């Protein structure tokens, strides 16, 4: 019924073969081309820590880069790929603010040249009921947190997306408020233990390429056990705070989007069920897994919490 070209499905073996090819071939090429941005994702120190379940197949690069929710570039799924051409993600720096010993501005190039980029294959579950499997490249957020040394009372972290209406057409539209488009800049947040969790990464690439603009270039958060909107894109500010910070969706619609927004098949979104999901590329829906299948890794973070109340 739904035709998927065999070429659109990359299985893990081929992907890893491709990785090795990229590592071997392109890395040396990138080095000769001096500071090619691509170089960051093709160093030899790639560590593969990824796990992929038997019934999870990687989504294709095409699917991952053409079906996006990134309202700064428009509200249709293909809008981010179409409208993000003007966005210039380099050079890039991230402001570190709030309750930390070492506030300031960190250059992205500086981060990348001092950090080991790892492969992380994660499931991504959108609150709208679809999901993908994405081979990210990035590093644990905890590495940055360790460097900037938060104070003891920094219980939460707030993230902020860049605000550039000239380059992001979704941010400059008229009557945004009336249309129910989000207030900018986009804000997200994590509790400190969630932020420190080894699964939580800042991603700078996928499928061995630098992130494309529509996927949140040049650097974005990926929290695989939470709904996709928590994984904020194109981060310019990381703010350490004492109290639970404002996050965009929960501010716009607190009844429907909570601060935690953990993937939970037992807690429905008021307007739709979260019990099942459609994996992009598949016909039949599949059951949604508790914490998006990362229950063993993360359930300890919430062991004394009422997950219905703190949705």
């Amino acid at each position, binding site marked *: 019924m739904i035709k998927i070209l065999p070429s659109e499905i990359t299985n893990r073996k081929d992907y890893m073969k491709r990785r090795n090819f990229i590592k071997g071939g392109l890395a040396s090429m990138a080095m000769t081309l001096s500071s090619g941005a691509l170089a960051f994702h093709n160093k030899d120190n790639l560590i593969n820590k990824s796990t992929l379940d038997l019934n999870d197949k990687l989504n294709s690069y095409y699917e991952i880069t053409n079906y996006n929710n990134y309202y700064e570039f428009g509200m249709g799924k293909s809008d981010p790929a179409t409208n993000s051409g003007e966005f210039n993600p380099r050079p890039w720096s991230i402001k570190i603010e709030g309750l930390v010993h070492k506030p300031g501005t960190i250059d992205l190039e500086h981060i990348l040249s001092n950090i080991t980029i790892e492969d992380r294959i994660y499931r991504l579950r959108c609150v709208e009921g679809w999901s993908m499997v994405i081979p990210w490249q990035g590093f644990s957020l905890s590495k940055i947190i360790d460097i900037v040394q938060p104070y003891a009372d920094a219980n939460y972290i707030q993230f902020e997306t860049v605000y550039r209406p000239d380059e992001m057409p979704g941010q400059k539209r008229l009557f945004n408020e009336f*249309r129910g488009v989000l207030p900018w800049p986009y804000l997200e947040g994590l509790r400190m233990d969630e932020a420190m969790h080894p699964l939580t990464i800042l991603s700078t690439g996928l499928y061995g390429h630098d992130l494309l603009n529509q996927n949140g270039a040049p650097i974005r958060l990926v929290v695989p056990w939470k709904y996709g909107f928590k994984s904020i894109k194109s981060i310019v500010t990381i703010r350490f705070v004492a109290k639970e910070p404002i996050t965009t969706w929960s501010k716009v619609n607190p009844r429907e989007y909570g601060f935690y927004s953990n993937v939970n098949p037992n807690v429905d979104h008021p307007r739709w*069920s979260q019990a099942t999901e459609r994996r992009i590329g598949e016909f039949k829906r599949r059951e949604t897994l508790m914490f998006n299948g990362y229950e063993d890794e993360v359930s300890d973070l919430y062991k004394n919490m009422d997950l219905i109340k703190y949705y």
Partner: protein
Amino acid sequence: MYIKLNLVKKIKPLLFFLLLTPSIYWTTKFYLGDMGINPIDKIIREFGNFSLRLIIFTLFITPLAKIKALRSIEILRRMIGLFAFYYICLHFISYIFLDHFFNWNYILKDVYKRPFITFGFTSFILCIPLAATSNNKLIKRIGYKIWKKIHRLIYFIAPLAALHYYLLTKADKTEPLIYIILIVILLVFRIFYYLSKKDSLPR
């Protein structure tokens, strides 16, 4: 300048094919795998959106036909209405079959737990008597007055369908709002017309 009945009669078959074409186009594209990255979601939305537009289209016919010059277009109303029902059915079937693959347990939960599905489903059920009584034989059998009463269900069907669309929209509610405003205007027109005529409600 009056639009002649003969002309409308000539246009009618053309309109028939015009309204049929989108369903063939989308189904073919779906079959060929050319419906984008999430084709099931896409085809359900296309069918649903088009049926709502057709519902509004039928609501336009009656007030427009009050204008003497346009009186003849009234004969198009039934066909447009039946096409609206056709697309609603396609919308409903693709939800049942493509989206949930006859998972009735899940679908029934959806219908009573999700307001937007409750509204959409109610709207669909209310359409059935309208479609069933859209032929001359039945109108004769049940009588014009009863037929008219049945067809007033459209005053519930249209707002419910628009509300269904409004509620499922996550952000940018411009389009569903336009539909709601149009429906309100068209229904208010009927109320005013009724009050001015002190007659029975216009159809």
